[in-house]
């Protein structure tokens, strides 16, 4: 089977697996993408949080500064309170920023710087507030002194915020790129899977369609075979009734022809001259011949219809029996027989006996003109079959006419040389074919013939 054939044979399965794998990959990618989008969203939130905290920190500082200025100039307790709550909130904000930027040491350093700057300023502001609160005089212009860190605080806070924004931009653009890639993969994958699944659907649909057609064809051929079997059965029945009437109706007139000719010979011998007697002889000879033709034809048809009862057949014993019978029929002949080892066969004993009878009768018959006459029987093992042979040194035949050898009523010798009806080998072939074996022959004119036939081996435990 070529690769292409394999491919087309398994195409549906392969396509199915490709679609399945693609869909699994897409699912995994989608899950990952979702996780990354969630992370990104958290980063955005984080950045916003940091910006907000920083802005709050800066506004707390400004609020402390404003309250400080107001308190020193007006001495209102409200301003003192506002100052105190702002100063109290500043370390908390710093703490919260510290935690938020744990993942980023540079930002933490900046937060630390910011914290120091704030502390330094508060360290300047706090003593003046305490003095004022305790009722002592403080110069109201003190808050306008230029030595505070406002500019620096503002700068660092901006740096932190910018850094966060930059981080966010970088992360977002990374995510954007990978998301775009992912979207491409998912869309392509989905289209591909869709295509593959459509193809599978088409394949399966076609398969189902073809199967339906095949089933239909099968049903049709089954019906066809049933009809054939029925007509064959009818033909067999017809043949049976045909041979039945042949055996009865044709034989009776033949018997009459032969009988009355005989009566004529007996009762009117005196009135017949020699030619008349010869003609009667011809009539009788031909009626006898027709009788044996009918008998052989019936035997041939009977063997074709006979049910085969297969058993183990002891060929050595069977052949011994057949040779003894045939030697009785050819009493006047001296034929030397040589029987080699014959293993048991599996088949119908009566039918196989007929095969040996026909082949051996032929061997005896066709060696009638040679001396010494010699017939050899043997066997060899084939592929699960036994091959038996009957070899003689008789008249043989011309291999040019081999195709007529086993045909019914076909003869390769004239009747005045070797009498016969031409049915014997047709029967042999029919019996062997019915045992699923083969039969064949090799011969040379005037040098003898060898007939081979195959039969299933008789197993030892039968």
């Amino acid at each position, binding site marked *: 089977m070529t690769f292409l054939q394999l491919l087309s044979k398994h195409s549906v399965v392969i396509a199915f697996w490709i679609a399945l794998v693609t869909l699994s990959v897409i699912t995994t990618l989608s899950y990952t993408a979702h996780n990354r989008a969630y992370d990104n969203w958290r980063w955005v939130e984080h950045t916003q949080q940091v910006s907000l905290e920083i802005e709050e920190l800066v506004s707390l500082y400004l609020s402390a500064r404003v309250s400080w200025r107001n308190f020193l100039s007006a001495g209102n307790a409200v301003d003192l309170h506002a100052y105190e709550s702002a100063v109290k909130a500043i370390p908390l904000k710093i703490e919260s920023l510290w935690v938020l930027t744990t993942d980023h040491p540079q930002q933490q350093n900046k937060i630390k710087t910011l914290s120091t700057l704030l502390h330094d300023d508060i360290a300047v502001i706090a003593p003046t507030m305490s003095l004022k609160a305790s009722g002592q005089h403080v110069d109201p212009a003190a808050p306008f002194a230029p030595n505070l860190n406002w500019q620096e605080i503002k700068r660092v806070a901006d740096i932190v915020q910018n850094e966060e924004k930059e981080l966010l931009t970088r992360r977002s653009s990374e995510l954007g790129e990978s998301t775009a890639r992912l979207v491409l993969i998912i869309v392509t994958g989905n289209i591909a899977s869709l295509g593959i699944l459509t193809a599978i659907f088409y394949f399966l649909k076609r398969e189902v369609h073809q199967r339906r057609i095949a089933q239909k064809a099968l049903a049709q051929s089954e019906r066809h075979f049933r009809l054939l079997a029925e007509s064959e059965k009818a033909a067999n029945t017809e043949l049976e009734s045909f041979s*039945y009437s042949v*055996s*009865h*109706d044709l*034989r*009776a*007139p*033949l*018997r*009459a022809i*032969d*009988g*009355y*000719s*005989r*009566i004529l010979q007996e009762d009117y011998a005196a009135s017949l001259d020699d030619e008349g007697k010869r003609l009667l002889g011809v009539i*009788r000879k031909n*009626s*006898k011949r*027709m*009788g*044996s033709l*009918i*008998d052989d034809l019936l035997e041939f048809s009977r063997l074709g219809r006979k049910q085969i009862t297969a058993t183990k057949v002891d060929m050595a014993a069977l052949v011994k029996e057949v040779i003894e019978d045939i030697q009785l029929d050819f009493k006047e002949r001296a034929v030397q027989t040589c029987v080699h080892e014959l293993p048991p066969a599996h088949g119908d004993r009566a039918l196989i006996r007929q095969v040996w009878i026909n082949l051996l009768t032929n061997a005896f018959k066709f060696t009638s003109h040679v001396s010494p006459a010699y017939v050899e029987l043997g066997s060899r093992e084939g592929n699960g079959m036994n091959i038996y042979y009957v070899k003689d040194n008789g008249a043989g035949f011309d291999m040019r006419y081999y195709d007529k050898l086993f045909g019914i009523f076909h003869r390769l010798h004239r009747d005045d040389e070797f009498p016969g009806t031409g049915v014997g080998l047709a029967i042999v072939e029919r019996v062997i074919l019915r045992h699923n074996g083969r039969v064949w022959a090799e011969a040379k004119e005037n040098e003898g013939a060898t007939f081979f036939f195959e039969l299933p081996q008789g197993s030892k435990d039968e």
Partner: protein
Amino acid sequence: MSEFESVEILLVEDNASDAELTIRALRKKNMANHLVWLKDGAEALDFLFCTGSYEGRLNSKPKLILLDLKMPKVDGIEVLRRVKADERLKAIPAVIMTSSHEDRDIIESYQLGVNSYLVKPVDFEQFLDVVSRAGLYWLLINKVPEK
């Protein structure tokens, strides 16, 4: 109808030639003197059961029935069935003489109790031999109950 009183052989055969050849074979052995030839099974049954045209016949039984198988109206198998089913007739030797040696005919005949089944050879010499030997055996060699 005195001619039917001491019948020895009842030949039931529809074919005139076969009947003549059979009678000739038996006559050669001097066994055809008390032979009745009937041409079909229906006539044979009338004869054996003294019915129809044989009503009132003195009820003597033949010593041997030679039956052809294939005959018009009532065939040999049916005659055999009726004979072997009858208490008074079943002891008469009945021999089927036919041209066919189909297995089913042989099996059926023996199931019905035929005494012998012979196939008539085409060759006349062989035919003479078969018929005369059958006649000799059943009429002279074989023993049957007295009554």
